[in-house]
């Protein structure tokens, strides 16, 4: 910005600043003050919104989780009692929350693994295709990605419909029997999750595929070619040359997938209304939702637990992003 250097440099005792240097120092200080005022001025609307809509409820939720706050207190205007960790203890000893948590984590692992493996495979496939085929695949992936989760679940729910579903009809035709007539896919929890996994993986692959494909474009072709001339097999080329280039992208994608798959709500909720048994198929989000409005203290404890869990899991994303981005 300014042509004169502001800070005095060099070893030895700092010489007394000359008049122009003093001026420069003063200008610099002035500029900093102006920057601070301007910066925070521009940030203030965002800061206010985030403080009121995220900070305040977060603090409120933590406080509520230590109380027996219910809808009764709200109606009567009475203050709830402080009950310490009782909500948390009840959550892990007296409710089916541990089962829901285990289920959510298991589902998350399956979803994340499938989405990443298939996503990377599709990305590699796209690098090997001709232009026309690549555009075709890209358009297909974009369409799947663009479907709103709820409409996607409605359509898939119909494809797996008990009476008129495409899948039952197809299985009947393929096996030449009527074994699959009126087969319910959503009644059994495992089968319910099978359908759920198909829906989520179908929508999840495009993001991973496009991101990985962009990363693959940065692998230098000459290095690959040299390795290929030296006799490295395709798998070894991928492991030792391509993978190091993809590592940081895949780390971020992995963390995002873990978080998104743990937060999943719409698809589960919608499939449950199509015929799943909610008590046997709840994940964290739907479990919390189905607690209903009323037991504010108890639900706050669930919320606090979820936030802490997701913040721990997303720490890798925050750190990688901060490290890689020059701030």
């Amino acid at each position, binding site marked *: 910005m300014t042509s004169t250097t502001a800070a005095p440099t060099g070893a030895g005792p700092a010489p007394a600043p000359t008049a122009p240097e003093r001026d420069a120092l003063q200008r610099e200080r002035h500029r900093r003050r102006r920057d*601070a005022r*301007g*910066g*925070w*001025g*521009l*940030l203030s609307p*965002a800061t206010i919104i*985030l403080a009121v*809509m*995220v900070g305040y*409820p*977060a603090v*409120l*939720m933590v406080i509520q989780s230590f109380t027996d706050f219910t809808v009764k207190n*709200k109606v009567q205007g009475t203050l709830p009692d402080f009950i310490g960790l009782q909500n948390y203890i009840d959550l892990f000893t007296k409710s089916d929350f541990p089962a829901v948590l285990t289920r959510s984590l298991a589902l998350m692992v399956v979803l994340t693994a499938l989405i990443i493996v298939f996503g990377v495979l*599709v990305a590699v*496939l796209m*690098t090997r295709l001709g232009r026309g*085929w690549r555009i075709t*695949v890209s358009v*297909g992936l*974009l*369409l*799947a990605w*663009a*479907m709103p989760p*709820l*409409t996607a679940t*409605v*359509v898939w729910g*119909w*494809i797996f419909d008990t009476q*008129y*579903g495409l899948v039952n009809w197809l299985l009947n035709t393929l096996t030449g029997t009527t074994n699959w007539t009126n087969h319910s896919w959503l009644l059994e929890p495992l089968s319910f999750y099978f359908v759920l996994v198909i829906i989520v993986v179908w929508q999840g692959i495009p*993001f991973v595929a496009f*991101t990985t494909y962009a990363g693959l*474009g940065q692998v230098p*072709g000459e290095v690959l*070619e040299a390795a290929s001339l030296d006799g490295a097999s395709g798998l070894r080329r991928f492991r030792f040359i391509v993978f190091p280039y993809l590592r*940081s992208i895949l780390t*971020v994608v992995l963390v*995002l997938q873990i978080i998104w798959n743990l937060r999943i*709500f*719409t698809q589960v*909720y919608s499939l449950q209304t*199509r015929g799943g048994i909610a008590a046997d198929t709840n994940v964290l989000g739907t479990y919390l*939702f189905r607690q209903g*409005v009323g037991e*504010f203290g108890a639900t*706050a404890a669930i*919320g606090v637990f*979820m*936030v802490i869990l*997701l913040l721990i899991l997303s720490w890798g*994303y*925050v750190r*990688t992003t*901060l490290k*890689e981005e020059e701030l």
Partner: protein
Amino acid sequence: MSTQVSVGTQLGTAGVEDTLDRPARRRSMDARRPPARKKLTRFLLNAAALIVFVCSVFPVYYMVNLAFTPNNKIVSRTPSLFPTDFTVSNFTTAWNREAAPGQTDFPHALGTTVTVTAGVLVVTLLVAFLASVALARFRFKGRRTFIVSVLVVQMIPGEAMMFTIYGMIDDWHLMNTLLGLGIVYTAAVIPFTIWTLRGFVAGVPADLEEAAMIDGCTKSQAFWKVTFPLLAPGLVSTGIFAFIQAWNEFTMALLLMSGYNLTLMPWLNAFQSSSVGGAVNWGAVMAGSTMIALPVIIFFLIVQGRMTGGLVSGAVKG
């Protein structure tokens, strides 16, 4: 600092166009293979591409297909892969019939959704734009702290706080109002929007502004005349992101809105489990789904892969 923009364009190209070095490399590597094997490889790759394409597109196609099929043909033991008796009556049914007695119909839900979405879009873009300029163009104490908090807030699941937010909105007497829902959405979208826009602002070199200032512009003139026009693509794609988020949101809408004020997603949810006039009209449900999905798909095709750029900007070295 140009990572953001370069990733954006890169992903844009990754979506549909060709990159230069890759076909060349492929050719030279394939050249050493025997022709028969090369043909087989090519065939298998194209077959895999076809499978990926069909699997991706089929559900979307099937939805549109059912939307144009009369309901009595949908409720059939032998499903058809294309509309045998083409009809648009499903669309009129979806448009006219309320989800349940006392609940909203499609046009009103559409109006509600468009109002909320437009409000969220305008406020979010304005607030996030100011914030991103501050983060990209000013150096001040607390800047890094703010960036870290934005990243952390982006990771806090809003659904986890659903009942606390419910209580808060209730205390403010904003339950079942567009304003209440709009505020919740705005707060949910802002962190990502700030993060993405910051990258776009930082991607426009400050030298350009300085050059304009040497030519006699004031600092703010330089910003509005030089930098701002270059930010248009960034504003468009972040705006579309905010639009899609607000349009697709389901959880909080389900919790906060009811009756006549339902937005489109809870409307669809109510519509697919309602049996006004007998059984569920699946043709109309699919027609409704199609109408809801259409704007999102169109906007998605416009921004293509650019949204991934914001999420992985830190990980892709430009």
